[in-house]
């Protein structure tokens, strides 16, 4: 199972500008699997992404948007992308600011479908 996750994450990191991808337990923010470039702090990414997703998930539910299917934090020097995965997990990507978000999202969704 772990090897399968790894392969899926590796595919995502091939998208230009993606620095790393990881599968995280949404509830506690623990890393399930990761494929990261050197320098990317996996544990921090996992914890922060899980927390941010939870907060926006609650706001989206309150706003009648339904469950969050994609989250994108854009910053001056990078971006964080999150897609929910089965069994309460979330797929997280750390990328450059100018990453092709459409392509990264496509690969993330494919990966999630594979996980399911």
């Amino acid at each position, binding site marked *: 199972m772990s090897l399968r996750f790894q392969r899926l994450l590796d595919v995502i990191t091939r998208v230009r500008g993606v620095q790393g991808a990881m599968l995280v337990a949404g509830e506690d923010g623990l890393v399930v699997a990761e494929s990261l470039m050197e320098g990317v702090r996996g544990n921090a990414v996992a914890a922060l992404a899980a927390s941010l997703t939870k907060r926006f998930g609650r*706001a989206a539910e309150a706003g009648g948007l*339904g469950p969050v299917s994609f989250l994108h934090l*854009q910053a001056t020097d990078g971006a964080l992308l999150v897609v929910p995965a089965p069994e309460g997990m979330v797929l997280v990507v750390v990328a450059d600011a100018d990453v092709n978000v459409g392509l990264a999202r496509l690969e993330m969704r494919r990966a999630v479908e594979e996980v399911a």
Partner: protein
Amino acid sequence: MADEVKRLTAELARNPGSLVFLALGETLRARGQLDAAARIALTGLERHPHLADAHDLYARVLADAGDVEQARDEWGMALRFDPKHIGALKGLGFVHFHAGDFDQALEHLETALAADPLDQTVVQALQTVRAAAEIAEAEAAAAAAETEDAVEGIADVFAGLEGARQGLLLVDLRGRLLGGGMRDGTDRDVAEPVAAYLAGASQEAERTARLLELGTWSWIVAEGTEGSMHVSQPSDATLLLVRRDRSVPSGRLAVFAEHATAVARAWLEEQQG
């Protein structure tokens, strides 16, 4: 009057089981001798616990003494023994009137009037309560209009922009509404819960961007199954939320959000200005 008290007292002494205590108690109450009136009323109630008039007398003494709550109970008791007791109906009308519950006051007084259409005290009480109810209604309408004006004022921040009142929300970092409005797909007002959940989102976004060395956060988009929301920070102390349904592509949402952010920023500068 003193002679009257003497006469009634003597009569009651001769016949303690009689109903003379009602007249004596009422005379003492009218003279302001409330302690004496209460003693007579209670003594009478001991002998006639199911007499509505006795409860009514004691209630009037209590009301004069300022114990409106207990008076209310006593009048309620009187009505249990005599549902059309005029004194109890008037008394409860008085209690509800002073509590600001005009509907209940009118109901009791109208029942009293139906029981005795010639009772002028009931007619006068009804006129007083109806006038007060009309004033209260006018005041409530004015307050509602004021609230509506306030909502209009809030919506004006984004006047002219698409979704100014249902898809654009400006809040401060403590979750308080500053402008715009937010409604979900069923037209339910969701501005306050959304604002509450988003309060602190900027700190969370800032912390995430800083710890992951992503620089300064610019905006966040959350896509849900029913629509999307775009969150940005027009100023250090505010958050702007743009909500759109699923039919709006994410690129168009971003362009619109950028425009709305500029509008919010201009409004904030104007407020500070």
